[in-house]
């Protein structure tokens, strides 16, 4: 995944564009099932392998299913998958990480050992191992991916909590005799959740890729459910005759992965103050210039 992203870096998607792509993905993911022009599952062998046309805008695959509809439906599959995995991984990761940072001592030691092991291995390998144990299936995939993803959230949460625990506003609560539960649930959890969600944005792209990869390997989303990785593997045998069927899902996937990544990066960078844009700067200059016009001599008197 990192190799993939590093090579994608020179693309330099602008944060604005990334935001639009992610928004488009979310929109299609949420409303796709109602937007598709054709039933993405309906086969029509008579229309198999068609090129783009008025009826099938992006053509059909080798079973005659409408490619455009399948691409959109796959966004929905992907989004639901990402949401489920992130949801579970965030709950585990934030919960354990916050606990580790709050309790310190042996609790932290135990949690962080497990986390370190998890972080040392590539997420996909962990997920593959889990699937090896549980067997294939939708929920098995979701759980396997969640188990592979929580350690990074756990580490971030712990770091945030450790950083915030000796901040005076938390120490003040301890001095006031606030119960540990209040400090944990009212003050620490909201803080970590906010910070971790930024990381989660960047990670959503990686997850989309992993879901596709697992499906590509036949271990994730099972046919006939439309899914980009699965669409790729499905049409691979027809690569030479109809490369469009391979390129389109690949392109959709790449866009989403890169866009999520740049969006996450942009959110993280957003905290660093940037110089003003040209338009805003001109406005501020004009404001300042207005100060020095006539009223000055009248009201402010002479300068030394």
């Amino acid at each position, binding site marked *: 995944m990192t190799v993939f992203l590093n090579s994608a870096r020179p693309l330099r998607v602008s944060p604005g564009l990334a935001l639009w792509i992610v928004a488009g993905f979310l929109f299609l993911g949420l409303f796709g099932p109602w937007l598709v022009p054709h039933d993405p599952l309906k086969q029509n062998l008579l229309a198999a392998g068609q090129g783009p046309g008025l009826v099938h805008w992006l053509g059909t695959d080798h079973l005659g299913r409408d490619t455009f509809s399948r691409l959109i439906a796959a966004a929905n599959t992907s989004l639901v998958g990402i949401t489920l995995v992130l949801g579970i991984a965030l709950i585990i990761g934030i919960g354990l990480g916050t606990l580790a940072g709050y309790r310190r001592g042996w609790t932290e030691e135990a949690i962080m050992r497990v986390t370190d092991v998890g972080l040392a291995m590539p997420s996909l390998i962990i997920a593959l191992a889990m699937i090896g144990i549980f067997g294939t299936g939708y929920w098995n995939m979701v759980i396997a991916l969640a188990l592979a993803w929580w350690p990074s959230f756990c580490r971030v949460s712990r770091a945030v909590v450790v950083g915030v625990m000796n901040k*005076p*506003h938390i*120490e*003040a*609560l301890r*001095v*006031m*005799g*606030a119960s540990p539960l209040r400090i944990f649930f009212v003050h620490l959890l909201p803080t970590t959740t906010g910070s971790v969600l930024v990381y989660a944005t960047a990670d959503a792209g990686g997850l989309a890729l992993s879901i596709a990869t697992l499906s590509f390997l036949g271990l994730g989303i099972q046919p006939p459910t439309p899914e980009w990785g699965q669409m790729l593997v499905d049409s691979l045998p027809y690569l030479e005759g109809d490369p469009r069927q391979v390129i389109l899902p690949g392109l959709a996937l790449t866009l989403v992965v890169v866009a999520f990544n740049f969006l996450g990066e942009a959110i993280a960078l957003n905290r660093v103050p940037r110089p003003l844009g040209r338009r805003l700067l001109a406005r501020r200059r004009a404001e300042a210039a207005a100060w020095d016009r006539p009223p000055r001599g009248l009201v402010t008197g002479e300068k030394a």
Partner: protein
Amino acid sequence: MTTPVLEVRNLVTHFRSVERGKTIKAVDGVSLHLNAGEIVGLIGESGCGKSTLSRSIVGLATPNSGQIVLDGTDLSTLRGSALRRTRSAIQYVFQDPYSSLNNRQTIGEALEEALVIAGLPAERRGARTTELLDHVGLPAAIAPRYGRELSGGQRQRVAIARALAMNPRVLIADEPVSALDLSVRAQVMNLFFDLSRNLGVACLLVAHDLALVRQAASRNYVMYLGKIVEEGASTQLYGDPRHPYSRALLASAPSPDPVAERARPRVPLTGELPSPTNPPSGCRFRTRCPVAQAACTATLPPPVEVATGHRAACLFEGA
């Protein structure tokens, strides 16, 4: 004699050093007491252990040994929520008014939360919040605002109001005005007078601005490298410092009057505070003491009463 509200007996707080096997002897056997309604100063160079001592008293640092006795109750005999409840009568004011309030809370919410923790019933919290703000000289209209919208002085007063929500008997203020401008320091300092005189709160004022402590505190402790080296009333300590360290410390503060400043005798206090991991044997001040003698290497000087309530820990006190 009145019994003190807070008594600290022979408190020791050590930290594990990053260097293996070494300990940082931040607080090394300190005893002090505070009476009700009294402001007591704690002065000394940075790194001498003032903050660690303060934090140990309120439970933010864990002492290795020693006792903290609040109104006759030894806190080390308590555990869990009983300890938290009892200890909340000792409150703490932080140096940095910018990070001691949660940026996500409004002033009203912060005070409300303190009152919830203090166990005040919901219907009385609103009135009490107004009362607390009034105590620290802030209008009730400030309650819906966020801490970041206030000035440093206002934030520090909110922090004090929050401490007051716990009905404290003791207030420990660690450099409460160091981060504030000279012009607003007075507002916060006068508040401490008000709390001690009108609410009977005992205040421990930790500060390095000696002129400020002299005027605010009636008694003082001077700390050096984890130990108290001198204690006495302000008139005694600032008028007639007996420990060579106190003398050097008082002499190194510049005067704001340039003529007096030029005439000020320079007592050269060379070098800096030695490392608390490996304090000098005998008298800890001997490496910088201008009047050190051979005997100072061998013996740890005990506190000697030089006048009523005025003690100095020097073998050659008054030399």
